[in-house]
């Protein structure tokens, strides 16, 4: 049987990993906010552009 390729979070490290994931999520929000969403493009009546102007 093939062993797992998904990396689990051992329970003893869950708090530390959650803290780091929360920080990464903040960073992801900063990055993703620079991209135009389909909804935003629809409001402008244009095809979605990769980045906000």
């Amino acid at each position: 049987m093939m062993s797992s390729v998904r990396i689990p979070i051992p329970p003893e490290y869950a708090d530390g990993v959650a803290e780091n994931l929360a920080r990464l999520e903040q960073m992801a929000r900063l990055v993703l906010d620079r991209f135009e969403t389909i909804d935003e493009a629809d409001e402008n009546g244009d095809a979605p552009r990769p980045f906000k102007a």
Partner: protein
Amino acid sequence: MTMHDMPAGPALDIVRRLRSGESSAVEIIGACLADIEAGNPGINAFVHVAGERALREAAALDRRLRSGEDLPALAGVPIAVKDLFDIAGETTHAGSQLRAGAPVARRDAAAVARLREAGAIVVGRTNMDAFAYGFVTDNARYGPTRNPADPSRIAGGSSGGSAAAVAAGMVPIGLGTDTNGSVRVPAALCGIWAFKPSYGRIPTAGVFPLARTLDHVGHFASSLADLELGYTVLSGERTAGPDSEAGRLRVARLGGYFDAHCDETQQDAAASAAERLGAGGVIEWPDVEAARAAALLITAAEGAVVHARELLARPGDFDPACRDRLLAGAQIPAHWYISALDLRARFAEQVAACFAKWDVLVAPAVPCAAPALDALDEPFGAERWNARASLGLLTQPISFIGLPVLCAPVGQTAVQLIGAPDQEATLFRAAARLKSSSASLP
């Protein structure tokens, strides 16, 4: 102790003394090893000293000299190498107990090979953050590296051991790596010269990776002349040479985000360097905060890829300082990572536009002076920064797009001189001009 006090002396002086017969290589390396033996217990820069091998190589160099051979550019110069580079016949621990049983390297890393081919002698491996994932060089296996100027403070990281070895005058040149600032942060906290060229300029073959699309090789030196000599050997390129100050340089200071994320001392250092270089203005880059965020995401995702098998098999063996971050990186959704890559391409285009007008940009390298070792998890500085998380705030957005950066000492810190892609020679010209404006700069 400074480089000027040590028996071995700066690299160029060592080569001169060797060629003139004033000193033998064995004497030079012997003096260097004595300095390390005396100074290392206080700062913990070296995790392994290869004294016997270094003396053997020095004796071989003396035999070449006696046979009338022309000696290469770095003949007899002792070099410190971060424990991330392969050295033939030794195990690369990458600062982690996970690597304790790893086989010895079969060949030198490309950068180490270039230094050794030029006659340099590797005297030992230096301390670092585990797997180069950090800015403090506080290592669970080897302990912390202390700042030679004030041992109660950190030397910075992740190449802190090499920086401290140079700052303490143990060696004239130290080899490091810089993924997000790991050469520039310790250079600034130790107040020494350092260089991180454009991404890919010096091969990373034989360097244990942190984040493959961000990893750079860089180096520290006790003087600008040694920094330039080291770069010439590492890159195989000539820089500006003896007329390096000549020509007009268009210099601006980077403001905005870079002013907002450091204290007054660092702002003053950047302003002073910019003024001495005749800066023509202050400019701002767009989207720097998002760029820094993208650099963190890319590092976390690519770092987790490197360690995926060990994170599955034995997460408990990782240094606690990087384990939770690597496990978190392994959970990153693909769209975060790909968006970060897309943002990098756009940010590089936006920044490239400013180099049509400017040759060199001056920016602070760190938010503030070296934090105390016993306060790494406490907020510090004017903005109450967290040392572990914040020391790369001003370096990450620049290495993110692979720009060359020369760190020049200003007072007790160092500032970043940033150039356009592949314009390394321009930075050495700017550094020479800065040095000529200050009699105290080595």
